[in-house]
């Protein structure tokens, strides 16, 4: 046996043209149709080689190769590690890459199994020490342990880190623990068993029922019940149907779909196949953003491997079900995340939304019935099929089941991906998992749900997160991006930022979105530039309401949300900008003045020497002064002052 799927002996008759339906089970639990100790031993040896469980004694050094860690230099670490292990004559230890652990802040991440020792921020220079101390002599390299930002404690093991402790990783379970480029590892850790179970125990209709029982709602943002969507597509009339995966993750601040595709691509393939079986489709498309080259590469490789093993293709595992999967690379348009725009884009058109109804379930890709779900939604399906809809429904809250992956970014200590049960509070995510606000600053707001979402202030921190609670608080789940802001972020400027984005990305098909967002942006820009007028807030509210009510698609219908939610919770900041011509956060350059604190200034002259416009005057060892007439607010003096004596006021 060369790999997990090659025949163990001549009795194995599996062939791609004549597939055996028990093939996968045979490899993981068999041999089934014959009882040969020799085959069993061969199979077990292969499983042991790829198995990662902590009970096994085999040692592995796992190096994260997600985009974040690669950008921080994990490829070098991998190269040096391979060589160093070889040079040290260590033969019982495999060096392997994995997908994203989600803790990008700490990259490059190296995990040593089976103990699960976690090393963060590893550079190529640290490798020798890890090999010498840890791999050869069994001593741990303490200086590379993770330090908890709140308590200052050092964590030896992966499982002890607060960032992971509060999570419930289901979709991300494999991310960071298996090599996404090897299908064997996915299979050995239980992959494709949901698919086998589907084929053996379920009719198409029963699959739909099971998904309905699970209570899964679309993870792309809208939260539409997934089972219901499947039912509509299954019931739609048509000889040809399609399954489409939306991997056009355009929300600024969200990267969960990317990590799932990079770290666990087979879960998405498996989910889509189950969906195809349930709705009666034999062809699927994954629409991936072209900005994600690594995700595309991993997915291509995963598809090729699944085809080679006879898992994807004609007569899958002797079930009589055939499924073909293709990748379509996007061409850069945020609006293509909207389902009908995405379908137009696959068809080679401009990515403009269609009027609904008819919905894609009845008239989707090439006007045939189409099931369209997001990456994370599909990745949940194999879990539901394997463990059952009831089991899944026991997780989460009454109306939002299961877990949700959030992308934690912004002014927070532990940025990264966190998968948590629905119903967890914002405070737990931001302060326990996220480790609190960076540099000891004060929490101000969290922007949740990207350009379609809203900003939630401190008084909403104990809000249990689910689809409905977020909507009533003025935000929305969106794809799950959480951008945390501290006191130095101006909320008016943030609203302007989002409007700039949506206005740029509006496809232009309908007037409210095309013209309305433009007018709103003009007003916001004026306010941040110090030209706000009385009545601006009311005009913004009026425009927001009509854009929400009259736009054709989700982009326009949600574009005003960031403005409305900042107006709801931070109206005083808008008023300060308009009435007092003052930016309380000190971010809007036209509305802030740089000042020198005479108590702190020791007259070192660094500010004056570095000021590009010579706005600062003062004698050596005397308190300096900034001339507001000349000052351009560039902030060079703040960066250079060692006494922190210069502030924005």
């Amino acid at each position: 046996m060369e790999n997990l799927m090659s025949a163990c002996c001549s009795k194995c008759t599996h062939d791609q043209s004549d597939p055996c339906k028990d093939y996968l089970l045979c490899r993981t639990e068999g041999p089934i149709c014959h009882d040969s100790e020799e085959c069993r031993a061969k199979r077990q040896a292969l499983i042991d080689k790829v198995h990662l469980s902590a009970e096994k004694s085999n040692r592995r050094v796992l190096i994260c190769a997600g985009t974040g860690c690669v950008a921080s230099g994990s490829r070098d670490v991998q190269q040096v590690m391979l060589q160093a292990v070889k040079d040290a004559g260590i033969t019982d230890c495999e060096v392997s890459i994995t997908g994203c652990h989600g803790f990008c802040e700490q990259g490059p991440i190296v995990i040593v199994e089976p103990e699960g020792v976690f090393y963060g921020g590893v550079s190529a220079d640290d490798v020798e020490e890890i090999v010498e101390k840890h791999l050869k002599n069994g001593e741990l390299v303490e200086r590379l342990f993770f330090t908890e930002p709140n308590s200052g404690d050092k964590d030896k093991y992966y499982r002890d880190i607060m960032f992971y402790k509060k999570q419930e990783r289901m979709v991300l379970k494999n991310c960071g623990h298996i090599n996404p480029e090897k299908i064997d590892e996915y299979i050995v850790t239980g992959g494709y068993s949901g698919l086998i179970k589907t084929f053996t125990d379920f009719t198409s209709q029963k699959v739909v029922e099971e998904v309905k029982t699970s209570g899964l709602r679309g993870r792309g943002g809208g939260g539409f019940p997934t089972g219901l969507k499947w039912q509509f597509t299954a019931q739609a009339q048509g000889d040809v149907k399609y399954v489409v995966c939306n991997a056009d993750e355009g929300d600024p601040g969200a990267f969960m779909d990317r990590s799932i595709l990079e770290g666990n691509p087979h879960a998405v393939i498996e989910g889509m196949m189950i969906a195809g079986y349930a709705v009666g489709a034999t062809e699927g498309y994954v629409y991936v953003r072209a900005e994600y080259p690594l995700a595309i590469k991993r997915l291509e490789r995963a598809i090729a491997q699944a085809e080679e093993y006879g898992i994807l293709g004609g007569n899958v595992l002797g079930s009589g079900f055939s499924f073909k999967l293709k990748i379509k690379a996007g061409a850069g348009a945020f609006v293509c995340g909207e389902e009908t725009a995405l379908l137009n884009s696959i068809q080679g058109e401009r990515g403009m939304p269609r009027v609904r109804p008819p919905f894609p379930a009845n008239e989707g890709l090439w006007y045939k019935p189409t099931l369209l779900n997001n990456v994370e939604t599909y990745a949940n399906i194999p879990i539901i099929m394997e463990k059952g809809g009831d089991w899944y429904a026991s997780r989460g809250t009454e109306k939002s089941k299961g877990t949700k992956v959030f992308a934690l970014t912004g002014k927070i200590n532990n940025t990264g991906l966190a998968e948590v049960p629905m119903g967890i509070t914002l405070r737990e995510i931001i302060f326990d998992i996220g480790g609190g606000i960076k540099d000891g600053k004060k929490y101000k707001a969290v922007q949740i749900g990207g350009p379609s979402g809203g900003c939630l202030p401190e008084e909403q921190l104990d809000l249990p997160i689910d689809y409905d609670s977020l909507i009533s608080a003025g935000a929305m789940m969106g794809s799950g991006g959480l951008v945390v802001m501290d006191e130095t972020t101006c909320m008016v400027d943030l609203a302007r930022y989002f409007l700039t984005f949506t206005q740029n990305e509006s496809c232009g098909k309908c007037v409210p979105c095309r013209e309305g967002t433009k007018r709103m942006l003009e007003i916001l820009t004026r306010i941040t530039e110090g030209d706000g007028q009385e009545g601006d807030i009311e005009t913004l509210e009026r425009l927001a309401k009509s854009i929400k009510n009259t736009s054709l698609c989700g982009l326009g219908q949600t574009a005003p949300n960031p403005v409305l939610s900042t107006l709801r919770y931070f109206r005083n900041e808008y008023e300060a900008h308009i009435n007092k011509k003052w930016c309380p956060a000190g971010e809007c350059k036209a509305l802030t003045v740089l000042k020198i604190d005479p108590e702190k200034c020791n007259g070192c002259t660094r500010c004056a020497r570095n000021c590009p416009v010579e706005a600062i005057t003062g004698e050596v060892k005397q308190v300096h002064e900034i001339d507001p007439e000349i000052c351009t607010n560039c902030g060079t003096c703040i960066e250079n002052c060692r006494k922190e004596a210069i502030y924005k006021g």
Partner: protein
Amino acid sequence: MACQCCNGSKDQSDKDKQLDAVFEKYRGMNGALIPVLQAAQDVYGYLPKEAMERIARELKLPFSKVFGVATFYSQFHLDPRGENIIRVCLGTACHVRGGAGIFGKVKEVLGVEDGETTEDLKFTLESVACIGACGLAPVMMVNDDTHGRLTPDKIPEIIDKYK
């Protein structure tokens, strides 16, 4: 601009041949326009008008449609681009962590504005909405390499590496 008056024609016909291969691959396929435009852009580095006209003829589509699609998506470019594409992320996470400062510094170092190419055709600068590496904000991509945790003073060094 480098001299393009001589030795250019041979290159050009090579590229045209490559485009033929693209048509062979996609002819008759549903929804081929976007992949064909992507492949053509890979061949030429951008989408010259002549190439778009050929695409329209070969795929039997009106030129207006080809042009409409090419101008709709931000990844298609109608002008020659630099050898290295620098994409500075101005997504939300980068925005709150100082992405604008990074963008400003890159503009200063290259001496070009958003969407422009340096005179020596070495670099093209673009701002993008999010490249999904928010954990490392602020970030930029040079070609397919992601550079994270940037500060303005790191910029000249990174750009030097690609010169």
